[in-house]
């Protein structure tokens, strides 16, 4: 009887996990026409390439659409402006950006302001010089870090 109960509990747990996994997988595997109006409004810069994105890429973009309404108008404008470039970055670049963003969030206000200034200075460097800096920098993360 005890064994039977244990098996029943295990079965319910496994079924719950299965249902959750299938629902998550299906949520990301949607075509552009299947998106809601609100999602299409946010993800509009990606309309032409949405159906070519892989499910895991769509899932990340849908997460962005989900968080979008929580922002003020200025932040929303920034998201729309940067979304296309973000979708075209490699998984490595995106993962690198996420980790750097976390580090940036932990900085003081002064440090953040200083970094913004530095970024503007860096943008003024000739593209050849920036390309050389990128080429000379070793990769920080391994393939295992990417998703």
């Amino acid at each position, binding site marked *: 009887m*005890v064994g039977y*109960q244990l098996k*029943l*509990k295990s079965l*319910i*747990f496994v079924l*719950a996990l299965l249902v959750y996994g299938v629902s998550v997988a299906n949520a990301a595997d949607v075509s552009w026409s299947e998106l809601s109006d609100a999602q299409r409004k946010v993800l509009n810069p990606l309309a032409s390439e949405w159906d070519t994105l892989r499910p895991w890429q769509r899932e*990340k973009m849908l*997460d*962005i659409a*989900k*968080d*979008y309404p*929580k*922002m003020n108008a200025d*932040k*929303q404008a*920034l*998201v729309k402006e*940067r*979304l296309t*470039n*973000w979708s075209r*970055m490699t998984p490595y*670049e*995106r993962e*690198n*950006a*996420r*980790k*750097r*963003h*976390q580090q*940036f*969030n932990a900085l003081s206000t002064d440090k*953040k302001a200083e*970094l*913004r200034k*530095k*970024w503007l*200075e*860096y943008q003024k*460097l000739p593209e050849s010089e*920036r*390309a*050389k*800096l*990128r080429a*000379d*920098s070793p*990769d*920080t993360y391994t393939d295992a870090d990417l998703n």
Partner: protein
Amino acid sequence: MSASENKYIDQATALDASVEDQIARNMVELLNSHAQKLPEAQAARLADARSLAIGRLVNREAQLAGHSLHRNGHALQWRGGRWGHYFEQHRILSALLIIGVMLFALFAVQQLSVSHQMENSDAFLLASDLPPEAYADKGFTAWLDTN
């Protein structure tokens, strides 16, 4: 009945008991001596049968002990009163209750970490003070180290 006849009957009864006892002793000796001379196959079968019988007895006693423990030591009976009795009588319901509590705990943990996730979500990265390119650019990181 005369006294001599009674005496005769007592002697005969004592003789019968003595003979019976002797016959029984002879039978035991005979069985013992034959038991020593049993063929190996028969001895093995007897040993197997004995093990089987002992095993069944042990199992039955263990089941009885388990049933007794379940009746008297069920965890939900700690609750006492009619609720403890109710849950004991509805084992599937108690299993579902445990799963429900686990799911609620999972939901609570997710809700508690929402604010942390929001700060680190891709949407907030895109709306950050720096563009995603700044975080992903290895050249910028290298340039910061030297400036």
